[in-house]
C-alpha cells in the first residue's frame, strides 16, 4: 500500500485518502502553440520504469495538491513537496540520487 506524507498538513496518508493526478511539472501548450507541442502536452506522458514525479491531491484530507517523487518499480517514495514549483527541489533530487545514482527524468537528473 502506497503511503505519502502530505507536505501541507503533515498527515501520512495511504492511497484511499489521496487522488493521483498524473505526471508532474507539465508545461501547458494551448492556443498558438504548434500541433506537435499540443499533442505532446495532451497525450505524451512520461511512463518510466523507475523514478517518476507525480501530482497527487490529499482529497479526503486537507484537499490540497502536492508533488511526489516515487519509484514505479518498487513503490518506494523518495519524498513529497509543495505544488508551488516548476521543478523538483534539490533536497528531493539528492534523496533520489542517494538511492538511484543514475536516475534521470525528462530534463531533470
Amino acid at each position, binding site marked *: *500500500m*502506497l503511503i505519502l506524507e502530505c507536505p501541507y498538513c503533515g498527515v501520512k496518508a495511504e*492511497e*484511499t485518502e489521496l*487522488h*493521483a493526478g498524473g505526471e508532474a511539472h507539465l508545461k501547458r501548450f494551448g492556443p498558438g502553440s504548434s*500541433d*506537435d507541442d499540443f*499533442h505532446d502536452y*495532451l*497525450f*505524451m*506522458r512520461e*511512463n*518510466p*520504469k523507475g523514478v*517518476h514525479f*507525480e501530482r497527487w491531491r490529499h482529497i479526503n484530507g486537507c484537499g490540497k495538491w502536492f508533488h511526489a517523487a516515487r519509484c*514505479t*518499480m*518498487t*513503490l518506494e517514495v523518495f519524498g513529497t513537496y509543495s505544488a508551488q514549483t516548476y521543478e523538483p527541489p534539490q533536497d528531493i533530487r539528492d534523496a533520489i540520487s542517494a538511492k538511484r545514482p543514475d536516475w534521470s527524468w525528462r530534463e531533470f537528473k
Partner: protein
Amino acid sequence: MKRYSVFAVAREALRYHSGWERAWRSPAPKRHYDVIIVGAGGHGLATAYYLGKNFGITNVAVIEKGWLGGGNTGRNTTIIRSNYLQDPSAAIYEKARSLYEDMSQDLNYNVMFSPRGVLMLAQTQHEIRGYQRTAHANALQGVETEFVSPQRVKEIVPIINLDGPRYPVLGALWQERGGTARHDAVAWGYARACSNMGMDIIQQCEVTGVRVENGRVAGVDTSKGPIDCDKLGMLVAGNASVLSEMAGFRLPMESVALQALVSEPIKPCMDVVVMANTVHGYMSQSDKGEMVIGGGTDGFNNYTQRGSFHHIEETVRALNETFPMVSRLKMLRQWGGIVDVTGDRSPIISKTPVGNVFVNCGWGTGGFKSIPGSGWGMAELMATGHSSLTESFTIDRFKEGQFIDESVAAGVAH
C-alpha cells in the same frame, strides 16, 4: 510434430505416456532472422503464427524476457467478447472472437473456448442508454448482441440479486457468442504451431537495446547476444514505453496495474460471464469451479505486477451486493498485471518513426479477447505494410484527433 488426437491419447495410454514430445523447441538464437517479435505472449505468438500461416514468413524469432505466456496472457480473466461501440474496434474484436471459435481445430491444441455468453449489467439510467446504443451499433456492424430485460437477466443468471440497495439491475447487454477460453492454452497452442513451422521461440532472453541504422532497424541486443533482423515487431504490453525508448521514439500510453483474484472452487453455479462496470466487478466460473473475479486499475503509474488492496475490497464488496451467495467464499489467490493504457482506451497497432519497426500495444484492460484478431492484423501489417483491420489504430491518430473512443466500453471492467 505429432498431432494430438484421440488416437494419440489411446496410443500413449498403452505405453505409459512415454511418447509425448515437447510442445515447442527451445533453440539458441541464430545470428539473423527476417522478423523478430519481442514478447512471447498471446499477441506476439499470434502475430508470428499468422506471419507463417498467411504469408509464408517462417524465418522468425519470438523473444521473451521471462517465460512464454507469463505476462498478461497468464494474468487475465480470460473473457472474450466483441460488443464494442466504434466500428474499427468491433471489426478487430469480432475477427478475434470468430477466430477463437475454430482455434482449437486450427492449432490442433485444445484452447477450451467456451462460448457461454457475456452479460454486461446496466445499473444506472446512463448505462441503459449507453448499452442500448452499443446494441444498435453492433446490429449495424454485424455483431450479434441484444439489450435484455432484468427478468431475462434473472433467467440467465439465477444467482443474481436484481434489487441491490445501491445499484439495482435495470437490464443488460447480452452477447450470447462471447465467453471464455483457457488463457495459457492459447499461448501454448500458438507456440507449438509456430515452433512446428520452424520458428524459434527464445525464452529468458531480455532485449537490452534496439540497433537502428540509417533510420531503419538493424537488430536487437539481448541478454543472449546481438541478433540481426529485417523487421521488428514490439508486442510487450506494459513494457512498450521502455522498449520504444530503446528504439528512439515515444508512445502515448501509461502503464498501470490491473488486478484479478479467484475464490476457492465451488459447485457449478453460474454458466455465463457477468460484468458490472458501474460497481467495478466482473465474475465468471472456471472449469475447476473457482469464481474468477476481476477488478479495477490503480490510478497511478506502476510496474510492480501487484495492485492496491483497496481495489480488491471495492470489487468484492460490489459483487457481494449483486451475488449475495458469494459472500462467504474464501479467496485463494490474487495477482496483478501491468496494462498499457492509451488516451482513448484503444490499442496502437502501427508503423513507427523507425523504419521496419512495428508496434502493437495499448490494449489496456482488454488484451486477451483480441489476441487472434490482433495477431492476424499485425501479421498483415508487418508482411505487406497495410492492414484494413489495423489502419485506424495508428500512433498518429492522437495528433489528428481521430480517436477510437472506447472509454465507455473498455474504461474499467473486462
